[in-house]
């Protein structure tokens, strides 16, 4: 029997599939807008948030799924992306860089951090790397919290006094949003006519485009020289080393590229929210992303896309909004439903790990049955 779950792409084939998906993606926000009339929460906003997590999960999938590295602090790069965006666009810092430039810088800065944290630690194997990344993931939010009012003294001399880099636990707000002054001028519109603000439909498309960039890169990398090297490292690092693959460089590339996806998504997220706090990037976020990758199917880009959409929407829409809405604080107090979220994921993880450890949508299985061999012995040897 064919495993339909293992081959989500086989359900529809050809160009028709793409056309249908494109139509669905375009129509979705308008359909959701109609649905919002029935709900008393911002459905599109929740979906947008979920989609950001899908883009993040793609980055983590490169690190964990393709290169086989255990990263328990991936949210750190998300934080670095978001906070870099914050520093570049928060009015008090007087930089107020354009959104369209800042997001690429954020991706770059996150990649650089990926290399900084990876270079000394990527020679560590397995669990040790997991611990280092966990520690890094704990340090970044703590640093962000502490750098709101920062004084540095060195041998009695005050080098930096009360410097406010991150605005501490109050967070950075407001943050830069994309502006289309160029288009406004072109079409002779009023200044600010195309300001997007928090318009969820705009952000939906912005996030879809971001996700598509990430998805495209992931798919291309997966079937390339670098992607093969990642998988070789995952399968057997020592053997890969003997076959001419430099393990450190290859793993650094995975770390840096995974981080850059996260940085890009973090920047877009920050701009969408307009406000960021250290609390947004705690350990639970790293774990949630890991859950998406593992439940969906490590190493499967399409699997993580589909699984990510399902899990993140389930979490952000159903668990966070619909369920409390239904109970409306009567049957169960609201916090109970919120904390039930982790009960769901805990049980889900255990069940999946026991019964389907490769995840719901594992990588497309390669042909495993043995076809009649074309050449039985080492060909040509007998004749020579």
């Amino acid at each position: 029997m064919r495993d339909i779950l293992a081959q989500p792409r086989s359900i529809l084939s050809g160009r028709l599939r793409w056309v249908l998906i494109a139509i669905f993606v375009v129509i979705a926000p308008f359909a959701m807008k109609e649905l919002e009339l029935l709900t008393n929460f911002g459905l599109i906003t929740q979906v947008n948030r979920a989609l950001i997590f899908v883009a993040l999960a793609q980055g983590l999938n490169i690190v964990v799924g393709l290169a086989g590295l255990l990263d328990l602090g991936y949210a750190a790069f998300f934080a670095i992306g978001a906070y870099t965006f914050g520093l570049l666009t928060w009015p008090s810092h007087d930089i107020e860089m354009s959104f369209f430039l800042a997001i690429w810088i954020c991706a770059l800065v996150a990649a650089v951090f990926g290399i900084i944290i990876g270079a000394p630690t990527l020679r560590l194997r397995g669990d040790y790397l997991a611990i280092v990344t966990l520690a890094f993931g704990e340090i970044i939010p703590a640093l962000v919290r502490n750098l709101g009012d920062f004084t540095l003294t060195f041998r009695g001399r005050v080098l930096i006094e009360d410097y406010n880099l991150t605005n501490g636990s109050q967070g950075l707000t407001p943050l830069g949003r994309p502006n289309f002054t160029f288009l406004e001028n072109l079409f002779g519109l009023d200044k600010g006519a195309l300001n997007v603000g928090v318009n969820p439909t705009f952000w939906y498309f912005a996030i879809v485009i971001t996700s598509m960039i990430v998805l495209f890169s992931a798919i291309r990398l997966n079937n390339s020289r670098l992607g093969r090297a990642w998988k070789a490292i995952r399968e057997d690092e020592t053997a890969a080393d003997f076959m001419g693959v430099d393990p450190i460089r290859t793993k650094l590339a995975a770390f840096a590229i995974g981080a850059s996806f996260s940085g890009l998504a973090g920047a877009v997220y920050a701009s969408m929210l307009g406000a960021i706090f250290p609390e947004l990037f705690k350990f639970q976020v790293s774990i949630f992303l890991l859950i998406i990758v593992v439940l969906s199917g490590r190493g499967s880009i399409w699997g993580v896309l589909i699984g990510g959409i399902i899990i993140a929407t389930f979490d952000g829409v159903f668990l966070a909004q619909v369920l409390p809405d239904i109970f409306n604080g009567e049957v169960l107090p609201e916090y109970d439903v919120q904390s039930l979220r982790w009960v769901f994921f805990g049980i889900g993880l255990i069940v999946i790990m026991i019964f389907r450890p490769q995840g719901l949508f594992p990588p497309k299985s390669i042909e495993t049955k043995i076809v009649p061999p074309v050449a039985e012995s080492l060909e040509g040897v007998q004749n020579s």
Partner: protein
Amino acid sequence: MSIDNQVFIQNVIIGLTVGGYLALIALGYTMVYGIIELINFAHGDLFAFGFFISLTIFAEINPEIPLHGSDLYFTLPAVALLTMLLTGSLNLAIDQIAYKPLRKAPRLAPLLTAVGISFMLEAIYAIWKGPIQIPYPRYFPKEDYMENEHVISFFSKLGMDITEWRIVSFTTKDLFLFGVTIPLVALLTLFIDRTRIGKAMRASAQDREAAMMMGINVNRIIASTFFVGGALAGVAGMVWGLYINSGRFTMGFEAGLMAFTSAVLGGIGNIRGAVLGAFIIGMIKAMSDSYIGSEWTRVVIFGILILMLVFRPSGILGSTQSIEKL
């Protein structure tokens, strides 16, 4: 004695107390890792379970506060034993249900399962006791020995006037904490070193398959490891309750991270290393809280952890030699 020195001494005392309960938790981490190479993320939450369950048992018994007489000498140890039994059993049950089916699965599977268990436990605590700071009644009598006249006269015979040490305090609670943690740590070390089960544990940690071939029932050994580790974390949670008098459903995560860091610092898998690591982390925490600022303590501790792993991944007491077979 100058104020600075007094502050330092007080910090040392705090560091030792923190190290004491961290050691109890760290032992569970290191034992489980030693045998099945699992970073048991849920372990910290068993510490929290010890806190909550002992609180519940005390509430059932409803002894006079503070404890005195037979309550102090009989009820208290009984509650501690019951707490250890229940927490140990919980840990055992978790292993049997969640980790055991995954013994041969890829490493990520049990690790994430442990994280799942951890979050579940925390959610359950939040529902059970509420997602708020929970007070733990001041069952244990608190008296500062530094104000005790016998102690004062003892020190004055040594030529020291400790009535001037206004900052330093060493209370019955401190003594209680050391009185529980140090003997337990010593007992466990003896248990591992001397008893048959302890030897079997060490053998299983060295080479599970070889131990199995030598007729050791490895499954039973793993189960006892989880039980003992859970029991120690449970009693640590109770001691914490009696000492700090408050806690919340996430307390296990925080303490677990620190205990885990201790275990890694000492050399994960190494019993003495975990204890040493715990006291070092305890000291670092006390000093950092006092001299750098408690908001930086996390950064300091995790920074040290990263540096340690980069420069000496085997930990302080772990062996540096590892021959990897091709």
